[in-house]
């Protein structure tokens, strides 16, 4: 059962308070004034608020309640004048500001009388409001005005009298017939195709169901499918070279907007398929370009469960048309893990096409997303992934620099070592370690020297850093490393035992052991065994761990 209309006081909206209602005399005029005032406010509300705004709903409720009250005793016929509306001799609405005036908008389009019948339905009230709202918002003025829209609506409970808005006082009846150029060829529509010989004609009862089917094909709810069918035909014409691809792409883009407004995900997916089915070429490019739009993301996301998860198949078919920039923007504000994963999946599907956009936007995202995106970039667009990582090395946020270094370390592409070397001097140990790890894969002789300098030049760092630097040194330049390691691991004894070494020398030994682990061959292995014989407990454990790692890597590398 429908809820009763709002019975409370009219909604307050300061911007609309000036909407013109006037103090009418008789009770019927007062009720009519309240109806027109509520209608005008509700229609104007769409110029000020989003249609989904709560205030708009209140205005609609108020309008409906006022309409019920005004028509309770019988029809309300309002005469429309340029700035006023009157019930009989009583003015019930006056607004002289043309931009705000409901009367002027109706009058300008030619409406001269408007009657609300007794028992006018909510549906009709809402459709009237819709027409007026369209005029207040001022859209589609080239196609329709109030009169054409009212005529289309075929109201039963609302009637109106309309004239043409303005007309010449005197008119030359033949003026319009003057030739102005622009005529079809004289032989238009010829040669006329052959028709069958005529048969007899007679009046016949028409089959109601066949006519109903015909009318159904043109019903408003069939528009989306009709549009899609038309798009397919236009694409087919364009594929044959009979229509410019750009014009068809434009139409498909317009259809996409309509389907989006109507939330027709399935039909959107069919439209997307239409583009995807085209062979490579200008038409396909135009269609893909014409269909891509950030607003598709909303349709895709609307199909996702609140907690995230797999995209429904029709939504997945739309993913190639969602620009990654829109997804990244959305990703930054998304808190639900499952939906984050879905968004990252959308980005992945947009690569490598949108790699540049993704790379350019990484700097503004949280490090966790950057990590994921760099991983995705590395898989789908490695060149752009490395480029993005290198540019992030200069970012102010150490967390992003760290993610970039990790991504570079994992890259199989060739990476310049200079920016990595520079980071060996960073204040942040985690960054230095990550830089050294990246250099293990992407360094050169010059980098080896820098690594060695980093080990010898600084006096204080952690064993972890020492190990990574040592390993990098061993990997980059085995010969030079062995010479250095031999020096650092020289076994010095004093008369009564092992000579205690300083902290820095200890770190160098730590580095050397780790570095030997990265150098292939028996020589390095023998050196490790030799160290194990004289090393203290901690260093011996380090030697063993390094040996184990070396063996594991050996097995892995065959």
């Amino acid at each position: 059962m429908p809820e009763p209309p709002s019975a409370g006081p009219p909604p307050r909206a300061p911007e609309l308070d000036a909407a013109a209602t006037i103090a009418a005399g008789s009770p019927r005029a007062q009720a009519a004034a309240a109806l027109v005032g509520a209608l005008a406010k509700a229609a104007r509300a769409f110029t000020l608020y989003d249609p989904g705004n709560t205030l708009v709903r209140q205005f609609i409720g108020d309008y409906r309640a006022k309409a019920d009250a005004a028509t309770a005793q019988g029809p309300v016929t309002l005469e429309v004048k340029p700035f006023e509306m009157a019930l009989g001799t009583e003015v019930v609405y006056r607004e002289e500001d043309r931009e705000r005036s409901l009367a002027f908008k109706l009058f300008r389009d030619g409406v001269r009388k408007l009657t609300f019948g007794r028992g006018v339905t909510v549906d009709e009230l809402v459709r009237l409001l819709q027409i007026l709202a369209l005029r207040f918002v001022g859209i589609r003025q080239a196609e329709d005005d109030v009169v054409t829209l009212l005529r289309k609506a075929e109201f039963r409970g609302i009637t109106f009298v309309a004239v043409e808005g303005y007309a010449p006082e005197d008119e030359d009846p033949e003026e319009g017939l003057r030739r102005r150029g622009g005529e079809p060829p004289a032989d238009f529509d010829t040669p006329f195709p052959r028709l069958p010989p005529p048969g007899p004609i007679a009046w016949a009862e028409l089959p109601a169901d066949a006519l109903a089917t015909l009318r159904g094909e043109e019903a408003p709810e069939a528009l989306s499918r009709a549009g899609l069918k038309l798009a397919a035909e236009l694409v087919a014409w364009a594929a044959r070279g009979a229509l410019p691809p750009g014009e068809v792409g434009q139409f498909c883009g317009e259809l996409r907007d309509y389907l989006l407004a109507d939330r027709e995900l399935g039909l959107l997916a069919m439209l997307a398929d239409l583009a995807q089915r085209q062979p490579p070429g200008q038409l396909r490019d135009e269609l893909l370009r014409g269909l891509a739009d950030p607003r598709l993301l909303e349709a895709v996301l609307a199909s996702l469960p609140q907690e995230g998860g797999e995209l429904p198949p029709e939504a997945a078919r739309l993913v190639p048309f969602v620009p990654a920039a829109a997804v990244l923007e959305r990703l930054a504000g998304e808190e639900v893990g499952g939906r984050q994963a879905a968004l990252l999946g959308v980005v992945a599907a947009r690569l490598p096409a949108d790699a540049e956009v993704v790379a350019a936007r990484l700097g503004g995202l949280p490090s966790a997303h950057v990590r994921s995106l760099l991983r995705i970039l590395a898989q789908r667009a490695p060149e752009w992934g490395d480029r993005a990582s290198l540019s992030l090395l200069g970012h102010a946020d150490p967390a992003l620099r760290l993610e970039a270094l990790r991504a570079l370390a994992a890259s199989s592409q060739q990476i310049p070592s200079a920016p990595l070397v520079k980071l060996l001097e960073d204040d942040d140990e985690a960054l230095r370690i990550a830089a050294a790890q990246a250099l293990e894969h992407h360094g050169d002789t010059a980098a080896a020297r820098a690594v060695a300098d980093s080990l010898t030049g600084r006096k204080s760092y952690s064993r972890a850093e020492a190990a990574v630097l040592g390993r990098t040194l061993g990997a980059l330049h085995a010969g030079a490393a062995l010479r250095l390691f031999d020096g650092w691991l020289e076994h010095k004894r004093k008369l009564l035992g092992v000579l205690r070494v300083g902290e820095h020398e200890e770190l160098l030994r730590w580095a050397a052991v780790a570095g030997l682990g990265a150098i292939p061959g028996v020589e390095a292995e023998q050196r490790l065994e030799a160290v194990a014989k004289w090393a203290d407990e901690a260093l011996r454990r380090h030697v063993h761990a390094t040996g184990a790692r070396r063996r594991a890597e050996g097995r892995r590398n065959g």
Partner: protein
Amino acid sequence: MDELLQAQEDLARALGRARVGEDRDLAQRVREAGEQVAHLLSGLLKLTRVHAPENRAFDAPVAEFGRALSALVELLGTVHLVTVEDQIYVNDVRIRIEGKAGSRDLGTELRRHDTGGLSFHAPLPDPSVRALVRALAAAAEGEAKRSALLGRLQAEGVTAVEPAGIFRFRLEEGEDKRSPDDVVRRVLGLVTETSANLSAGRPLNPLPLRRAILAVLDAGLGAPAFWGGFPAQAAPHALHALEVATVSLATARAAGFPASFLQDLGVAALVHDAGYLSPGIGTGQSAFARHSLEGARVVLRQRGFQEAKVRRLRAVLEHHRDFATPNARPSPGGAILRLAEDYVNVTRLYGTQVLRADALGALVKGGGTLYHPVLSQVLVNTLGRHPPGTLLELEDGRYARVAAPARGPELWDRPLVRPLDPRTRELMAEVIDLARGPRIRRAVPG
């Protein structure tokens, strides 16, 4: 769901759809350029109080006016600048003049010459703009002030500007009752103007056509003015468009289509042959083969997706398509246009040899292959045993032409006719109802 919430959602969706259907860019450009033209013209007239139009002070605003007008002509074709009381419209788009007193005075300036508007048929070079300003700023002359203004413009070589009469808002419904003859002239004029604009590559402006279709429907499709005795000076293609529109509308109405469909179908019928106006379309068979698709391109150029455009586009694209085309059966709009156009063409091309009833008989025979089988019967029911325009020999020896479509099943074979003057063979004004009058002896081709 809460009824109000549902209503709100419906409204939001309707607005969303409408926004999608809007050619925002075009509307905005028309409004901006229109405002510029109106304001600059007003400013130029004011400037004449200080300087003569040849003065250097006019150089910049004259050039600016010329550019703005040129942009508008490019967009709209003929630019109709209309002042109605204190309002200004450019091709039906109201120009914002709030807070711009100068523009408000434009109407007053024009009214001195008994003029309410100016139609610009082409862009104006600088000397013509100065001549226009000079003519408007001069004192009004004689009794026929508007004619004098036109004469002055033509004497100065400004042939692309045409003054229009004074406009006013229509106040009462009675004022708007145009006769069917007026409506016919108006439709023919609009088709002529629209063709000229489309031919020049300008976008289609559907609103005036839609209002003209409303006028046709209001005047009543049964009115004899829609079925014969058209103005002799009308362009053949405009007449053809009108006839296809009236036959289409009568068919669609008889098939029970709603008002919104009738409006869209009527507009489509008026522009269905727009493809013939495409550059390089040629003549004969090749033009015939290409014009439907080229016409669709004309409609396609209108930006935005909306019901009216889709209907128009399909109808124009399919208006020569056979009903039984595999996998591409025409839409109802296309099928109705096909039927109406073929009927009108048979009568136009073979009317002297073939009876209109036989033309209908051929269309019925083609039902199911060339034509929608039900629609062809709808057309037969609508037009009658003796379709409008049929030449009849009456039992009393007079000749007459059928003046209107059938009035229902009972009177299906007894139409309204207009007798021919026996001496001149011209149609007479008298209308005879054959339900009461003489019997029909025979129908004659011609």
